[in-house]
């Protein structure tokens, strides 16, 4: 058990690539922290530096208060689960799990007892004498977890441990990982690509981009109060909608009509170097069929009309895709997000608007529908640096806040 502190940790490779840049992160004892970000943003590199598999170029890494920059992996007492599982193919499951204990020179009885315990927790008891080649993907994954937990290390590091499993197994293993971590209370750093894993597993989520940390916080906080355009677009599925907004006469001209702004945002925009164009962001669930909105709610938002493209009924609610006219929002962050998600998944910045309406809405494809959206849930971003202008002391307050 131990806390892990990264103090301005950077990594540059011999070929000049700066993979990780000045990462500051404090991981408390027993905490479950998730690292997410697009491909190539330095998640694995960060993890490998904590593990000791990569040298730290600059900065300091402390585990349990001790500087470990120059310590070999085996002296850090940390276990790692690899994306590829990395099981020793020449050893049986039992031998695989016993390997770290044998290296630690424990006596045979203790080793057997610990392996049996871990096998029981992971339901591997009947597979102990098999070789990895004769196991299914899910079983191999469990063996890899088993090998990590047997020796009760100070911390677990996991690099996309579930990404090689099929969707159903992944859901299953996700609960296994979550339960295991709660049970053992061991500090865990978990790298993933998966939105759901990021939102559901961790106590806190670290979003990285191009080697730098963008925002750290509990999943809900990142979702509700993103610091910048990148975080807003990265978290959430389907992702946030982004629209171009021109500042004119104290109003925002957008494809959804003229959006009024409150005093706080106005003050921000009065500064000499304030942007004349903004990006307006709004999540799918903050739209509603205008017919279904009561008067009290209606006052907190505004309405627009648009042709319905596609209706996807999910039973509990409906995803409705609208086509909207007008200039597209453009920013470096949005392009990056689109590239990472694949253009199909990231509709955020296109001429498409993704909304989540109540199941009762009689909306049908082809018609033009009147839709209400919540002005208090709007985010405004500066396209130049991605900063969220609606964020005040870490809270997003919408466009109307005074």
């Amino acid at each position, binding site marked *: 058990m131990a806390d892990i502190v990264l103090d301005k940790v950077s990594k540059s490779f011999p070929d000049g690539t700066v993979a990780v840049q000045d990462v500051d992160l404090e991981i408390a004892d027993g905490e479950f922290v998730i690292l997410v970000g697009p491909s190539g943003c330095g998640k694995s590199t960060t993890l490998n530096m904590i593990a000791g598999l990569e040298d730290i170029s600059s900065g300091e890494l402390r585990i349990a208060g001790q500087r470990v920059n120059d310590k070999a992996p085996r002296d850090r007492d940390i276990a*790692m689960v690899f994306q590829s599982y*990395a099981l020793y193919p020449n050893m049986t499951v039992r031998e695989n799990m016993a390997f770290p204990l044998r290296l630690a020179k424990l006596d045979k009885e203790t080793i057997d007892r610990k392996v049996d315990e871990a096998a029981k927790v992971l339901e591997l008891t009947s597979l102990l004498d098999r070789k990895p080649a004769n196991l299914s993907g899910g079983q191999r994954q469990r063996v890899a977890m088993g090998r990590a937990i047997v020796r009760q290390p100070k911390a677990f590091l996991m690099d996309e441990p579930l990404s090689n499993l099929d969707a159903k197994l992944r859901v299953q293993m996700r609960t296994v990982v979550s339960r295991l971590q709660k049970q053992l209370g061991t500090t865990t750093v978990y790298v993933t690509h998966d939105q759901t894993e990021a939102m559901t597993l961790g106590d806190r989520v670290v979003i990285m981009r191009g080697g730098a940390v963008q925002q750290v916080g509990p999943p809900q906080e990142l979702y509700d109060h993103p610091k910048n355009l990148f975080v807003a677009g990265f978290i959430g599925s389907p992702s946030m909608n982004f629209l171009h907004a021109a500042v004119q006469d104290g109003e925002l001209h957008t494809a959804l009509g003229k959006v009024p702004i409150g005093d706080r945002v106005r003050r921000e925009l009065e500064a000499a170097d304030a942007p004349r164009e903004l990006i307006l962001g709004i999540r799918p669930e903050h739209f509603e069929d205008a017919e279904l909105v009561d008067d009290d709610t209606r006052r907190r938002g505004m309405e627009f009309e648009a042709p319905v493209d596609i209706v996807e009924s999910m039973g509990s609610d409906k995803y409705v895709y609208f086509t909207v006219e007008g200039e597209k929002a453009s920013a470096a962050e949005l392009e990056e997000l689109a590239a990472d998600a694949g253009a199909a998944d990231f509709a955020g910045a296109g001429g498409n608007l993704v909304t989540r309406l109540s199941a009762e809405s009689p909306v049908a494809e082809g018609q033009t529908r009147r839709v209400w959206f919540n002005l208090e849930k709007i985010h405004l971003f500066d396209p130049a640096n991605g900063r969220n202008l609606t964020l005040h002391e870490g809270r997003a307050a919408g466009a109307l806040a005074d």
Partner: protein
Amino acid sequence: MAVETTTRAKLRWGLLDVLVVVFALVPVLWIASLSFKTPATLTDGNFIPREWTLDNYRTIFDTDQFVRALVNSIGIALIATLIAVVLGAMAAYAISRLDFPGKKLLVGVSLLIAMFPQVSLVSPLFEIERQLKIFDTWLGLILPYITFALPLAIYTLSAFFKQIPWDLEKAAKMDGATQGQAFRRVIAPLAAPGLFTTAILVFIFCWNDFLFAISLTSTERSRTVPAALSFFTGASQFEDPTGAICAAAVVITVPIILFVLFFQRRIVSGLTSGAVKG
């Protein structure tokens, strides 16, 4: 397209196999046959000897010359193989795993050695070894054998090492292994097929060498079988040694066959399956 398995196809393949095997084995069988013939029937042109005899074998094992050469051959080849494989494994491991300055140069130079015509080195080596007083010793042969076997060993072994997922080594390190332990307990067992293949190739190279054996030795002290064969005279000065030479030739193929059979069982492929999701 699946391979046909009808009876006719089987027959055709069988015939073809027999043809190939016979073609490859006729010279060997011919020598074996000669080794069992008496001097009188040696040149009668019969494939199957009409008069069987073991005299030729008796002759070669009676002369100290051959037995001594056999001991030299086995000793020199085994020692050279062992050293070449160990050194080759270390070099190959470094080449396949590390990115160190001068790596390309190392690989290039070892390739150069492999391509160097050995004949051109014989006279310089002869002079050098005489100066160093290792001419006509085991060491005098072991050293050049290692030199020429190493590139071969490095190449085969680094191909094998590259197939072993790197993650395994990282996993071993995370599990608390030192670099040495990771190599010995995880990587080496997986590279075993490669080690055995290389051992066989190097052993055969040393065992069969004639050029160095004949030029860097002068007495029975270190002469190996291929060289000794050329000095064969038979039991007496005036006997035709053909039968004895053939017997000796048969005898020296036996260790190679044993060596290959012994190691071949260990060359099973697919040792790394199941290590990583593939």
